[in-house]
């Protein structure tokens, strides 16, 4: 049986389609639960008009379905909390600074 931690670890492999930063470090992952092989993943996005929502969900579904014990992925989108730069992890900040992006 897959655990939420295993799913969360898999999510670290998924990067933002624009910047090669993990969606976990980007602060987009707001909740992970696994029940009867169904991974329930709650995501937020940097804006309500985020052009990458479908792309990110596609990438997540492909990756999480490869976690042993997961047979389905169900998504929820939340806008509370509102995404801001505060949600970036220290690792993401370091990466952005290296690319010359102010965070």
């Amino acid at each position, binding site marked *: 049986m897959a655990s939420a931690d295993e799913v969360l670890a898999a999510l670290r492999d998924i990067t933002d*389609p*624009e*910047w090669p930063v993990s969606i976990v470090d980007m602060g987009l992952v707001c909740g992970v639960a696994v029940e009867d092989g169904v991974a329930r993943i709650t995501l937020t996005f940097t804006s309500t*008009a*985020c*052009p*990458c*929502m*479908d*792309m990110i969900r*596609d990438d997540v579904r492909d990756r999480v379905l490869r976690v042993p014990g997961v047979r389905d992925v169900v998504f929820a989108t939340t806008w509370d909390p509102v995404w801001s730069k505060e949600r970036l992890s220290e690792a993401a900040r370091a990466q952005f600074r290296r*690319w*010359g992006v102010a965070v």
Partner: protein
Amino acid sequence: MTTPSDDQIVERIQQGHILETPAEMSDDYRRTLIHILTVSADTEMISAPSYYTAAKNSPSMNNLISALAIIQDELSHAHIGYRILQDLGVDTEALIYDRAPTAFKHPYAFDVPLRSWVELIVANAFYDRAGFVLLGDVYRHCSYGPWRRALAKVDKEENFHLRHGENGMRRLAAGGQRDEVQRAIDWMFPMTVEWFGLPDSLKTHGRQIAYKLKGSTNDQLRQQWLQTAVPLCEGLGFRVPAHLDQAIGVYVLEYPLPVEFDEAERRWLMDRPITWEQVLLRWKRRGPGNAMFVDMLQRGRRQMRALAGRRH
């Protein structure tokens, strides 16, 4: 400060010097930079009305948001290019709003209107990949600091565009729209191959490479594009008129470049080789969407000028 000679400029650039102001440029360097920037900015600019026209066929709200975001990126990239042209003394008001449609310098590919969501997806996968290859080359080599720095962000955004194309093609391939995708590939693949221009045997790059305003030759850039475009299509089971020649490790075309293009049918006549002079004539004449797309960009400005004129 006296204007440096061309040889001095080339020597300093070869030593790794980055130019920061027009005062450091020779006339020829400045002219060459203006030409390359105009091609680049015009290309970004014209892709907006081209993609916008196609985006009206978006099959979902999410798809429309993605398409509009890409268009917004393209306009901002154009804005960066024209803004830098202003610093070089170019009258961009006239350049953008008073130029005849046929005087724009974007590739011919954007003069051929996209007719469906599928074609927009393939354009993201092919045309934005060409943009990514060409701008990536400038980004890595460019000797003009202001442009080089601006391209750091542009590069990342173009990467998103071509990923949008790749993901889209994957979805369409899995979703039963294979024939429609193949039809789009059939005319858009050779279109992008032609985009990279004259082969090195015929092209004189002038000082573009010595000035480090371009790092690679046309054939090298075309090869870079093929290196990712061909595996993408083959991996999804689509046919393309090119393959990897294992013996030499180079992608080769399966038709004689260049060949005739039937504009009305949007079909390449693979058994009708033509000369590059004939291609250049077609490019100069411009394609079927040229006047319409440029009008979409200029119309509002003309209306606003007319209103302002009436008040005086």
